[in-house]
């Protein structure tokens, strides 16, 4: 009887997604080690150890850096459930950042309300930037991948321009934004030497809400149905166009939250804050969101864990610089993980088949 239960677990979809993710992570790490070995054989072992275990000593930072990519991961994953590839999380994230900055600098609100207003503003910014590709896709049949890439660039240039043009926000001699007022910085969770703050809790709550929306509401059902089969769901009377626009707007709002969370985080140094540098570079956290979403199999709950994992090895990668490696090693590992996770499901079925064959022979 017991073996029957195990079979049911191993056959379930969630389980195979989990093992597929593990397989992809394993291959990504192996590849990362090979690259490290090629770059500097004598330091590769100690450097790789740092990547694997370095994050342990900085759990506060792991949670802190996981917050923005958790949100961009939700932005990508939620759209993915409907079969839309939201590669524009970077632009939505940057827009969210700008809206949050704007409220932070330009609005005078009492402490306690100010940061809440800034977060909501950030969400609105991201929502707008997700809404546009949604409208382009639904009404004009423009591929959302191209649109959102273009809007990454447009958003980045636009935000840089608006910030540079605003004397209250921008210190041109330092090529960065001024320090945000205290009232708009998020309440810290009080872990020494870490900026971890209340936003990680909000982020996890949002992920759970999305999980409920996806699994317990009509909208979530329609969304997934459209993702499985566009034509069948249209035949069943679901309003595909409205759902596309709504999905992209929600996805954008998630990334907007992420941008707000990142820029409003409290600094560990008293009297300063996070700053934004308008240097015409597209936000990397948007692309990391793709990795987070794929690794978490686009499920909101899975995304919570994959965001923590990616943040964890990123901390390790930063520490690997002690041995002469550069933090980019982690970007390499992440890219390889995505590459393999794209066909990990396929490999998984092959492995399972081999395993089953083996078992039969044993019997």
């Amino acid at each position: 009887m017991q073996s029957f239960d195990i079979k049911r677990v191993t056959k379930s979809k969630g389980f195979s997604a989990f093992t597929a993710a593990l397989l992809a992570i394993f291959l990504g790490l192996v590849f990362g080690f090979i690259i490290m070995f090629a770059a500097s054989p004598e330091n590769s072992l100690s450097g790789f150890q740092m990547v694997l275990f370095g994050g342990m000593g900085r759990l506060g930072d792991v949670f802190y850096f996981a917050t923005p990519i958790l949100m961009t991961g939700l932005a990508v994953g939620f759209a993915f459930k409907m079969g839309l590839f939201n590669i524009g999380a970077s632009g939505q994230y940057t827009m969210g950042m700008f809206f949050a900055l704007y409220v932070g600098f330009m609005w005078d609100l009492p402490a306690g309300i100010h940061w809440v207003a800034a977060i909501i503003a950030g969400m609105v910014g991201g929502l707008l930037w997700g809404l546009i590709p949604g409208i382009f896709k639904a009404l004009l049949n423009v591929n959302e991948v191209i649109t959102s890439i273009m809007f990454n660039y447009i958003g980045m240039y636009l935000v840089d321009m608006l910030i540079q043009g605003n004397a209250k926000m921008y210190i041109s001699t330092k090529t960065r934004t001024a320090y945000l007022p205290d009232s708009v910085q998020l309440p810290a969770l009080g872990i020494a030497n870490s900026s971890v703050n209340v936003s990680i809790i909000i982020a996890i709550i949002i992920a759970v809400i999305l999980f409920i929306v996806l699994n317990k509401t009509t909208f979530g059902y329609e969304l997934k149905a459209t993702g499985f089969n566009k034509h069948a769901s249209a035949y069943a009377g679901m309003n595909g166009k409205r759902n596309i626009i709504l999905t992209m707007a929600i996805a954008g709002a998630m990334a907007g939250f992420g941008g707000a969370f990142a820029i409003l985080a409290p600094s560990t140094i008293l009297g300063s804050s996070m700053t934004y540098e308008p240097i015409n570079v597209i936000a990397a956290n948007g692309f990391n969101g793709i990795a987070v979403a794929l690794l978490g199999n686009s499920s909101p709950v899975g995304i919570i864990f994959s965001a923590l994992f990616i943040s964890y090895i990123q901390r390790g990668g930063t520490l690997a610089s002690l041995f002469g490696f550069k933090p980019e090693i982690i970007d390499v590992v992440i890219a390889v993980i995505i590459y393999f996770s794209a066909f990990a499901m396929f490999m998984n079925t092959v492995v399972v088949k081999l395993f089953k064959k083996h078992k039969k022979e044993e019997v």
Partner: protein
Amino acid sequence: MDTLYYLIQNTLPVAIPLLLVALGGMFSERSGVINIALEGIMLFGAFFGCLFVYYIKGSPMDVQIILLLAMAVAAVSGLLYSMLLSFAAVNMKADQTITGTALNMLIPAVILLFSKMFFSSDGITTDMSFYIKKVPGLGDIPVLGKLFFQNTYLTVYIGILFLVIATIIFYKTKFGLRLRSCGEHPQAADSVGINVYVMRHAGVGLSGILGGIGGFFYAVGIMNSNINGHTGVAGFGFLALAVMIFGQWKPLKILLAALFFAFLRTLAYSIALIPFLDALNINQTFYKMLPYAATMVVLAFTSKKSRAPKAEGIPYDMSQR
């Protein structure tokens, strides 16, 4: 008039990378594989092309010969990198968009990692100029000589040559016909004995060659033969995809689309030299956004009736025959 000469002379070296990469995308997509990895392939080709130039720089060889050799290096590296995509897309039946995204993310990280460790910089700086002041003979023709044979790069003529070759391969050879059939109805193609897998590998491979060369030409014509992991190829791979869609997956229309985008970009970067636009005193950043915004407008108007290859993005499944 001088402004016009200047604009045309500067448009061509920008248009050529777009043209070549979009042609590459065309081969890949018409064979049935969505190639979103063009950005990464370009950067990969540009990186190895520049690395080659970096090491051979001091040699007494003619500058233009070095350009041709580096182009070959870029083509081979682009081909190799594209094989990662076709392996995943054709053999492993992976999601082509995700694989492409992974390949796009991988290469800037690798470049930054190795450049920081071995060159202590963000990329490779060769500062090698392949600039041609004036083509002997042809450069003296009135008007035309000034437009097309002065202040230019060898890349422009190579690009045009590749366009001609690509068009002939695409429309006038058995291979081209077979390739196109695999992007429309692979099951039918298979039933008459065409190996769909081989054709799709070939399509992606061609896009790798053209993408690698296009990336190197981008470095030559726009970046002064330098390449940098941070800015990469500045979204040219994605712009090339838009050019390909705007060009309706057809070689000559792609040429026109590439010229259109390149002209807008050149305009954006030479505002200071055009008196009447400079006088408007609009923020430069607006012009930098222009190529991307124009892409959106153009796609909004053309996408309704655009007809992508029917089977693109769908892994070939023999059992659906």
